[in-house]
């Protein structure tokens, strides 16, 4: 496996399946009375967060602590040059503190990649600008596998043909072959969409992006997915629909005329949800704009995996830290 996790493209199919399988194993720890493993005792994990993100930071923090790592939270507001210490100097400081891994969230695309040149520890990208958010994609893939693979649910995909009891054992070693995933919304600015397209296609899923043309990346035609502008026809043939958050600043920058029109054309309400096949699930990376890209009754429905995604986030991040810091020898794919 790559020493760092910067992009979902850093992961081979086998790497990704190994992470999902490891997470599956770690999930069983959740059931125990003592939920801590000693694996990373004596290791230091730094959470370097340049953006407010309570959910991602606490998820990584919980993951590291459950593996008994020492956790340092280092939050720095704003970006480097304008506001004091440069990213490089911060990196050198963390290096001097003996950080074994740095989990970085940064508003600038590519900041984690730059960091790898300045420190010797492992770097985990926890979201960089409009580039990538690979652990989000991993937890999304984990959730999809949990809900749709080895359960007998779904249609078409050969990998899911053999119905099982839904136990984790049936899912181990399996990818997302044939799963049809539709990602809807602001793809242009979405690090979640970028990482998901790369990871899900590596895992064999068929990804379709749906967005207004203004929010589709210029060169989306070179990505390993399909892309379209019309939602309803895609919903009918989706095993998964993933709604992306519409950022407040897009609503005023002429990407679409009004929030009302966006909701009408690209929002997921109960009526649209009814177009989905019976087994299909609804995902959202959060935080949601209820009433914009997703209606409240959809978000709270039984199809929604939103809370499950959050829980799986801790498990998947445990697996990533475990494989990158603790289990490298047996983890090397």
């Amino acid at each position, binding site marked *: 496996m790559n020493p760092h996790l910067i992009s979902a493209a850093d992961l081979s199919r086998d790497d990704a399946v190994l992470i999902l399988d490891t997470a599956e194993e770690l999930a069983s720890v959740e059931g125990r009375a003592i939920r801590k493993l000693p694996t990373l005792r004596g290791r230091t994990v730094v959470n370097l967060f340049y953006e407010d993100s309570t959910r991602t930071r606490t998820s990584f923090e919980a993951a590291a602590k459950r593996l008994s790592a020492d956790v340092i939270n280092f939050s720095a507001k704003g*970006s*480097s*040059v304008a506001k004091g210490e*440069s*990213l*490089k100097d911060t990196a050198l400081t963390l290096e001097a503190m003996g950080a074994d891994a740095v989990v970085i969230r*940064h508003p*600038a*695309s*590519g*900041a984690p*990649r*730059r960091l790898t040149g300045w420190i010797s520890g492992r770097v985990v990208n926890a979201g*960089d*600008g*409009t*580039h*990538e958010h690979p652990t989000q994609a991993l937890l999304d893939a984990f959730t999809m596998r949990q809900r749709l693979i080895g359960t007998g649910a779904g249609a078409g995909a050969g990998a899911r043909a053999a119905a099982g009891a839904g136990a984790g054992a049936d899912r181990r070693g399996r990818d997302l072959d044939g799963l049809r995933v539709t990602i809807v919304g602001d793809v242009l600015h979405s*690090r979640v969409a*970028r990482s998901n397209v790369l990871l899900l296609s590596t895992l064999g899923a068929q990804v379709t992006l749906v967005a207004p043309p203004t929010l589709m*990346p*210029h*060169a*989306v035609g*070179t*990505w390993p997915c399909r892309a379209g502008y019309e939602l309803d026809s895609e919903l009918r043939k989706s095993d998964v629909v993933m709604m992306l958050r519409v950022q407040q600043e897009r609503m005023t920058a002429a990407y679409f005329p009004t929030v009302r029109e966006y909701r009408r054309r690209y929002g997921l309400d109960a009526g649209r949800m009814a177009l989905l096949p019976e087994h299909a699930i609804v995902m959202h990376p959060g935080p949601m704009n209820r009433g914009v890209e997703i209606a409240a009754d959809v978000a709270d429905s039984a199809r929604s995996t939103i809370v499950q995604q959050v829980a799986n986030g801790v498990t998947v991040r445990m697996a990533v830290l475990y494989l990158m810091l603790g289990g490298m020898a047996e983890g090397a794919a």
Partner: protein
Amino acid sequence: MSGSSGLSEEWLIRGAAIAGADPKDIHLKDGVIAAIGDAISAPDATVLDAAGLVALPGLVDLHTHLREPGREDAETVETGTRAAALGGYTAVHAMANTEPVADTAGVVEQVWRLGEQAGYVDVRPVGAVTVGLHGKQLAELGAMADSAARVRVFSDDGFCVADPLLMRRALEYVKAFDGVIAQHAQEPRLTEGAQLNEGEMSSRLGLAGWPAAAEEAIIARDVLLAAHVDSALHVCHVSTAGSVEIIRWAKSKGWRVTAEVTPHHLLLTDDLAVDYDPRFKVNPPLRTKADIEALRAGLADGTIDCVATDHAPHPVEAKETEWAEAANGMTGLETALRVVQLAMVDTGLLDWAGVADRMSARPAAIGRVPGHGQPLAVGAPANLTLYDPAVPATPVDAAAHASKSRNTPFAGMPLPGAVVATFLRGTATVLDGKVTR
């Protein structure tokens, strides 16, 4: 060497291929070319064996950022012109985006005098088109033209003169003193926050796109304005295939439009941004292979008049940062001719006579630079460069550069050739690839 000062130097250059032609001896005396021929006798001259070397008229750069006054941490007139001489240049145009901005006669005269004092090349200050480069009000273009600096090229480079009416007025106004407006063609609204050529790489890297159309739209507008008021437009750092087409069309109409391309846009693509190393961040951004091919073809057929470096030095800390935070720009004076050899000569697109035209004659004509860009002929000022194209490609060593800054995109990249000597009015500024003082 003998004769270390001014006009007292006398040189006999043996066997140089003038613009690639058959080897000749060149006798430099009293600041001019005294003789050209076979087996010239000049008993008092220092002899320089130039067998295998190409002699070019001293190179002229239309687009150099010398950073002084204001950013002497990045470059000074002294260090920047030393770098220029080492690159084979005898004249450079110093861009106006200094601190303070070169928008008054006082500042352009200061820069011009600093160039005189340094003495490596002739420094031709470029005047700002608008006060403070703010794009609101015309600077005192006439005062700069009449000053000791004799400014003829005006540019807000770094910023586009985006207001179409102001651009029209500027083009009209400089006709009174045979000036030219050098436009940084970048539609500002289409490039808000832009970081990288809009295409496959920007989409993948999550960097805000800089669309080719934002350059082409301004060029299209400006050639129409230049035609309408019958004035001279020069387009800075053309970077897209579409821009080349528009300029070719404008020239076919007989309009007074000229254009430059940078060495980096002739060689490097946006793929280099893959690791977010800001050494490859520049404005306009690196484009695609198809753009490079169009730019090379445009330079070869003369649609693009000249190569200009856009030498843009920055201190280390301006590049050791996140991509979005990093400064735009690359150094280029010391590598330009080698890049042109690789991209244009070794590919068969341009011969050495063509290089002399695109890197000396045409930029000198566009900048109205007296005494430069003339063919190497008896009686012409002895501004010339000796270049060895046979030196095998060696990786560029940024640490060895005379520029104060190290932000060359070519560091570690093998480039062929070497500048051996540069003469400014008969005085050697560079010998054996080293500055003479």
